[in-house]
């Protein structure tokens, strides 16, 4: 008899736990149902944006290389001005030497102002590393989302519902908007020179 009572008590405990767990599972399911579309959207955006990251990083490096080259050219000119002034300084009166000295100090100030090139390059490099790190994080999130979508029953069910609700026009519009926003403003063509452009006006 006591065994029967014990079994009944165990069953009551089980039902009590069930009463607490079932609403929790309901909430959890609702949460997953809300989060999945968002994850799905992030995943499709990621596919668009991740392909642009390497190109964006290369562009930042191009900026660094171009400013580096331009800075070196400016420095060549400044050095040449300084050398010229040194030569002139050898054969002029003291009064003029003072003037030349002032000009050389100004040249030195211009040289020092060119430190901006190094500082800007470091900032661009930092921005590139941040982009890369975010890209990697989104990559992981995307893989995790894919796993939930494909490997879990809940994921499959939600995805089936989502595909019924999905609006291909909206998806296309968002993708076009993204591509438009990230379109390159500098459009170069190696096989179309200034001469080719001028020829069109002849």
């Amino acid at each position, binding site marked *: 008899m006591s065994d029967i009572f014990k079994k009944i008590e165990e069953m009551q405990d089980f039902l009590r736990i069930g009463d607490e767990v079932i609403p929790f599972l309901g909430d959890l399911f609702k949460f997953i149902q809300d989060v999945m579309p968002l994850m799905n959207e992030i995943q499709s955006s990621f596919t668009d944006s991740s392909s642009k990251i390497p190109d964006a990083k290369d562009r930042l490096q191009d900026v660094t290389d171009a400013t580096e080259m331009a800075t070196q050219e400016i420095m060549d000119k400044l050095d040449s001005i300084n050398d010229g002034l040194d030569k002139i300084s050898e054969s002029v009166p003291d009064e003029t030497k003072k003037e030349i000295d002032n000009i050389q100090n100004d040249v030195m100030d211009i*040289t020092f102002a*060119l*430190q901006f090139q190094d500082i800007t390059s470091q900032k661009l490099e930092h921005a590139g590393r941040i982009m890369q790190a975010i890209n990697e994080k989104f990559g992981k999130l995307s893989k995790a989302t894919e796993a939930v979508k494909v490997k879990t029953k809940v994921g499959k069910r939600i995805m089936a519902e989502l595909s019924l609700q999905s609006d291909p026009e909206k998806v296309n519009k968002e993708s076009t908007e993204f591509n438009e926003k990230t379109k390159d403003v500098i459009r170069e063509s190696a096989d179309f020179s200034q001469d080719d452009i001028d020829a069109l006006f002849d």
Partner: protein
Amino acid sequence: MIDNKVLFVDDSPTMRRIIKNTLKKIGFNDFIEAEHGIDALEKLEGEDVGLILSDWNMPEMNGKQLVEELKGNDKYKNIPIIMITTRGMKEDVITAVKMGVAGYVVKPFTPEILKGKIQKALQK
């Protein structure tokens, strides 16, 4: 003319040139240039260098690692080192001081600032 040979380490050709011009203006005439820490250690071999100016952020081996290498080597530990860097946070400076650098200059700097730090480092 100042007799000390100076090693300056920076991955930016622009900065190396600015430092070189400043050193010339101050009166130094004997330089060794290096692009990063490993390059600096290789170029230091067999040289009698009296002052080192080093950037912090560099590829291969950064300035902090270079200072650690130099301070851990009996041959180089007494050479005064000045850090020239974009890292101006207090904790960066404290780290550098603890490592035993003789001076710390934050970019962008003026010729006067660099000159002052070099003179102070050489007097120590």
